[in-house]
């Protein structure tokens, strides 16, 4: 119903975020000691060549003008090119986007499914399972993803040889290989997330179980299966979806490490490499892509709200 309007409203509301991050990055990056024009011109260039390149890059303009120019360039789909490889930033990012998206989406799906299943189970069974979920949550949250990744590589890739040690296989090249190449990275990323979702699920299921309408349904003979899967889960879903959305964004942090450890060509590890190399156009482009990703995730969460909660939909 109001979904389209909501999408538009949310997109408009997210413009400040896009603006904020890009401007912030722009200002920060302009503080970077050194001058891209020097880098491009090279050490043997003459002062004249250097001035020319500076002019071409618009670096002789005031900062707000530079930002405006960058923005208009962005709207034309041009993010500049890497100071190092000379490749267009858009094409670098396009190449790497599927990797990070695969990792994040797979991790989200895994932590969503496994987390909800575990959470439901521990809410219903309680006792030992609840303790296991708690323990797993604690370990999953505490084990740094880069350390965990090394551990699973040692066990499952090197010793047992179940999965590849490194690398990413594009989905369109070999779906089986793609899935195989994602298993260990996703485990490293998602262990903590599974735990968070399981805990959240358990809490909101237990919370929902104690709500009046569930008692009314039980008292009036609704089937226990329908009460659990139709009514409790649906009502418990809202906070779970919220957490899942926040998680998807925060998973980016783990993805940075895991892409590095598994040598996967993703956007997150690209950002890290570009940081080390001070490849400014790439950093700006990556931050822009990531911000758009964040906005899309928030939008999806909002749409999920609309789908799940009629109060949002009809008010």
């Amino acid at each position, binding site marked *: 119903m109001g979904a389209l309007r909501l999408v538009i409203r949310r997109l408009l509301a997210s413009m400040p975020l896009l603006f904020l*991050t890009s401007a912030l990055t722009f200002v920060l990056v302009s503080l970077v000691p050194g001058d891209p024009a020097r880098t491009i011109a090279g050490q043997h260039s003459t002062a004249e060549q250097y001035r020319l390149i500076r002019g071409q890059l618009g670096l002789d303009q005031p900062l707000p003008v530079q930002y405006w120019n960058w923005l208009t360039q962005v709207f034309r789909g041009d993010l500049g090119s890497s100071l190092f490889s000379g490749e267009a930033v858009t094409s670098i990012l396009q190449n790497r986007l599927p990797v990070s998206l695969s990792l994040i989406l797979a991790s989200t799906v895994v932590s969503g499914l496994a987390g909800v299943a575990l959470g439901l189970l521990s809410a219903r069974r309680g006792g030992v399972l609840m303790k296991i979920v708690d323990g797993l949550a*604690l370990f999953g949250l505490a084990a740094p993803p880069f350390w965990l990744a090394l551990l699973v590589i040692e066990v499952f890739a090197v010793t047992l040889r179940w999965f590849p040690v490194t690398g990413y296989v594009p989905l369109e090249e070999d779906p089986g290989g793609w899935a195989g190449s994602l298993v260990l990275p996703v485990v490293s990323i998602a262990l903590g997330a599974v735990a968070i979702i399981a805990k959240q699920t358990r809490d909101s299921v237990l919370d929902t179980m104690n709500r*009046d309408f569930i008692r009314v349904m039980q008292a009036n003979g609704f089937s226990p299966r329908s009460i659990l899967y139709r009514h409790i889960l649906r009502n418990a879903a809202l906070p779970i979806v919220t957490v899942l959305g926040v998680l998807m964004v925060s998973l980016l*942090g783990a993805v940075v*490490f895991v892409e590095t450890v598994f040598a996967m060509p993703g956007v997150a590890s690209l*950002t890290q490499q570009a940081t080390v190399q*001070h490849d400014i156009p790439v950093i700006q482009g990556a931050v822009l892509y990531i911000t758009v990703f964040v906005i899309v995730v928030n939008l999806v969460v909002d749409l999920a709200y609309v789908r799940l909660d*009629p109060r949002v939909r009809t008010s």
Partner: protein
Amino acid sequence: MKTTSRLLRRPAAVVAVAWLVLLTVATACAPLIAAHGPLDQDLSHVLALPSASHPLGTDSLGRDLLSRLLYGGQPALLAVAEALVAHLVVGVTLGLVAGYLGGWADTLITRVGDLLFALPAIIIVLVVLSVFPGNLHAAMITFGVLGSPGLIRVLRSRTLGIRQEMYVAAARVCGLSDAQILLRHVLPRLTSTVIVQAALFSAVAVIIQAGLGFLGLGAQPPAPSWGGLVADASQVIDRDPWMLVPAGVPLVLTVVALSMLGDAIRDSAVESWSVSKLATASAPPPVAKEHAEAPVPGALLSVRDLTVEIDGVPVVQGVSFDVMPGETLGVVGESGCGKSVTALGVLGLVPGNGRVTGGRVVFAGTDLTASPTELARVRGSGIAYVSQDPMVALDPTFTVLSQLREAVRRHSGANREQARERVLELLAMVGVPDPEGVAGRYPHQLSGGLAQRVLIALALAGRPKLLIADEPTTALDVSVQKEILTLLHTLQRRTGIAVLIVTHDWGVVATLCHRSLVMYAGQVVEQADVESMFVRPLHPYTAGLLAANPHRAAHGHALTTIPGTVPSPREWPVGCRFAARCPYAGDDCRAAPVALTGPAPARLTRCLHVEELVSEGARL
């Protein structure tokens, strides 16, 4: 501090604190503990396993891992502290300001907070590091600030709550400045929340600082750092997998300790808010043994000796009563007397951790306590239930139609279309003006009265013989209350359904009920037909309730109240439970449990001083 001692009673908290203290001390005293300097190399023992001289083994240059771990803890703890300070300064200040000042400050802070919240912190930290290469201080402070929106949110809502409270308002009147109020009155109450958040944030900060070290963005080698240790371990993992252990395990333990500590502080703070609930249980008082009579022949529902326990504490004890077909029985009493629990106990649905631990519930000749399957079958189709607050009694995520249809189909096996017809019929039956329109609505789109009608329709979907209504009108406006009572009355006349109604309102009893049952502190204290009870109550509690009834005050008497409150289940005395509030109570009442007796035909009371009461009642 109370919280501290409570905290120290939790083994998890003690272990966590012990680890953190040990770590901090060991790190600070690294030169005293470590036998080697963090850079001292033993080139003839590279990548060595643990030994007496190197308790955790050595790295690629034969440097002592224990020493590197301890010395590496110094920058790690410093970095975490920096992030934490930034986090707290920004989070606490803005959270307090937003919650306390409200208005545009709140709007601004909340919006900016939302924006920050949406940013992927690690990416921004990377950008900062590209601007200030190798500057871990800048990175961690940035991380602290980026992490603050969560804290702002929590503190803002807590402050908002506290601000509403009286004494802050009073303090305000006394001429304290806003800053003074915040510092003296608001902040102290937020302490435990802040500590919890700080512990959890520190856990994340530990991981982040190690992560930056792992990526080579933190402390510069050869200076030791925790993340650097993991990076070193990763370089030699094929030759010396052992190194993963000293590199990672202390890190994991530290994060675990911080999260456990956070959880423990939160739990013990919660504990202090609800001390009474968790106070140690005293032995349950003995129950007056009563002869459980056989079910009255022809009764629709016979409850005998029903006992319900919650968390091992009896809250309803030895309750017996019958409901005849088509009859309306009122269960009366103050809140906390076990009325609702009794009603739900009949259905085997005690809230929380409660369960029926004794007695029998016989419905239409079947013992429901003996057979869970029978109980399940009877719910909805034999006995239906309407709860107190109609606004929360329906699933907010489904339409009226969908919920009612589910109930109808569950009990009749009708197909979708038939079920829909029946739903509209039911809605019409409960007096919903526009059944089609209402069916399509969601619960939040209904008024209270309408929602209660829908709820009654839901209860009627399985054509039950008995309707249990738990204070069905309490949550409604007075005018709507009347309508609902009328509806129940009409329905009963028309369908001959029996009703068990829980209420504290004599008006409801007078309007609807044939008989009524008065409960006090988990027991039945009086039972009689409505007429007789109103005219001549046989228990001081009933008399007191009737005297406090506004409907009666209309007769020209001053409205009296019963002094004192209902004792909680853990405080039940051995003798008469009402003795403490009773003008007639004597030592005999307190000596032993009082039994339910029948001083007159069809009347039951649990009082040793009925005679006195009757004579005094005659005076009234």
